[in-house]
């Protein structure tokens, strides 16, 4: 989902008539890395007993709305729930406004739009935390005085945020258009993934053998997405549906690799018309939404005894980083809840870590795959002077992954290599960072929903594209993904919670 990176040589920066540059000098990719690292660094101040993020808002299951919100750290309890909510909103507004300024977007428009996005998305999250939706165990039901629950856990709030976005996109299209400047799922999920690196590291460091085994198994995901999925979808699009190469290649990448980013990278690499990957991307988002609404619940029903198979499956089957990684979060919550109800309490974090690992492994190779396709196209299929160059690999490399790797490495070092008194404080510090990871997941889900205008499917001509997508996704990608996930992850269980 990354890789929309555009680089500009000094001479090609677009300028207005008054010689003012109109293109940003830094990409959204780099900005997401910076914002993620800043939040990670602020959280780490906690190991020096300086709590810089404890005011962030967290939400608990509730029946009394006044008890739904609270600051994440008790030391900030005086702020109160609503105070911490407003503080979080203001802080994010300021930080994200800086990124928007760097991207040379309209600041006032972003501020107004982001305000709507944040408040609606978080309100959806609060609704999703209502005890009748979120409570899981009989003890929880008793505690809240309710006699039934959908058992969606707090993370079920992601679904509510997604549905709120879908409703706005499809029933209030003018409002969806009005808040478009704040609807930035790629920015939000990339920041979340950078933070997630540190959070996962704390979990992984406790069981480094298991974590490294999962990493090795992530290699299977790369092979599957690039070599098997892509080839089959490309063949289906070309041979069965008669798409020409310019359409089939971005479509195959969109369906098989990582949705939007892969489609755009491939379109650019084979020198396709820019409109083609844009059209494919709009389909990718819609189908990703459909998958996120279905697959986590299927995983909970059929794979609750194989939690890591479920995590890997979501990473392989759901396209776009945002939907996949956040979908992994929902899947984890649902499966942990079902296991908890059966008396098995797994450590949280491992299912989401598996989804994120699979997705990030796939992301890393987008640039390389796009270069391979670009080389074949510009040398053998449509020979041109504008040959694919190896430097394009770095241009298309999703830079936020560097942030993920850095926060992971620092997190593992602090837990395993730092003195015991420092290591003991790392989980709490990462807990505060994780609060922001959750908030960025919520913003991602809502944003994806707002971009999911299902009327796109009724647009003349889209049926053929959608047919390739449906046949490939539901007839092949999901099931092969399940088979491979089962092959490499079955029998591996997260450690039990102590």
């Amino acid at each position, binding site marked *: 989902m990354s890789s929309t990176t555009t680089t500009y040589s000094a001479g090609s920066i677009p300028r207005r008539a008054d010689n003012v540059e109109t293109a940003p000098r830094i990409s959204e990719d780099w900005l997401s890395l910076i914002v993620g690292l800043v939040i990670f660094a602020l959280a780490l101040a906690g190991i020096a007993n300086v709590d810089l993020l404890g005011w962030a808002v967290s939400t608990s299951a509730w029946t009394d709305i006044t008890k739904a919100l609270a600051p994440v750290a008790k030391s900030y309890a005086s702020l109160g729930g609503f105070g911490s909510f407003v503080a979080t909103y203001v802080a994010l507004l300021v930080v994200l406004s800086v990124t928007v300024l760097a991207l040379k977007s309209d600041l006032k428009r972003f501020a107004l739009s982001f305000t709507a996005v944040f408040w609606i998305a978080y309100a959806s999250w609060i609704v999703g935390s209502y005890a009748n939706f979120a409570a899981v165990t009989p003890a929880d039901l008793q505690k809240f005085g309710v006699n039934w629950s959908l058992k969606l856990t707090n993370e079920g709030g992601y679904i509510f945020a997604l549905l709120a976005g879908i409703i706005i996109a499809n029933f209030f299209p003018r409002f969806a258009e009005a808040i478009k400047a704040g609807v930035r799922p790629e920015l939000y999920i990339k920041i979340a993934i950078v933070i997630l690196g540190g959070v996962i590291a704390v979990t992984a460091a406790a*069981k480094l*053998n*298991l974590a490294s*085994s*999962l990493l090795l*198994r992530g*290699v*299977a995901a790369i*092979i*599957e997405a*690039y*070599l*098997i999925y*892509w*080839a*089959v979808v*490309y*063949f289906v699009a*070309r*041979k069965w549906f*008669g*798409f*020409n*190469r*310019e*359409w089939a290649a971005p479509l195959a990448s969109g369906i098989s690799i990582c949705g939007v980013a892969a489609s755009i990278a491939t379109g650019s690499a084979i020198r396709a018309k*820019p*409109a*083609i990957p*844009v*059209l494919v991307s*709009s389909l990718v988002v819609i189908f990703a939404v459909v998958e996120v609404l279905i697959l986590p619940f299927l995983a909970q029903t059929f794979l609750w005894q194989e939690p890591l198979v479920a995590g890997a499956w979501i990473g392989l089957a759901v396209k776009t980083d945002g939907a996949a990684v956040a979908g992994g979060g929902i899947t984890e919550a649902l499966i942990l809840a079902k296991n908890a109800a059966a008396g098995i309490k797994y450590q949280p974090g491992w299912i989401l870590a598996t989804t994120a690992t699979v997705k990030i492994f796939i992301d890393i190779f987008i640039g390389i795959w796009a270069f391979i396709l670009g080389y*074949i196209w510009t040398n*053998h*299929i449509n020979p041109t002077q504008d040959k694919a160059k190896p430097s394009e690999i770095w241009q298309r490399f999703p830079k936020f992954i560097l942030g993920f790797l850095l926060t992971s490495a620092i997190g593992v070092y602090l837990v395993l290599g730092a003195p015991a008194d420092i290591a003991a404080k790392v989980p709490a510090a990462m807990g505060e960072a994780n609060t922001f990871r959750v908030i960025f997941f919520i913003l991602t889900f809502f944003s994806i929903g707002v971009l999911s205008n299902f009327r796109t499917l009724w*647009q*003349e*001509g*889209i049926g*053929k*594209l959608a047919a390739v997508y449906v046949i490939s996704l539901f007839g092949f990608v999901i099931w092969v993904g399940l088979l*491979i996930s089962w*092959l*490499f992850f079955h*029998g*591996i269980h997260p*450690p039990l919670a102590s």
Partner: protein
Amino acid sequence: MSKPNIANELRNAAVEPLLPIEKKLIGWSLGVGVTLLVVLAVVNHLFPVQL
């Protein structure tokens, strides 16, 4: 970027039969992919996860 009319785009797209290089790309991708998966599955079997 404004979205073009998809129907027109697709209608105007030329019919292109699969070239030998495309067949090679598909064949090699699948061949290498399946082979590597089998190798990984064997490695996975020989070196199970250490808990």
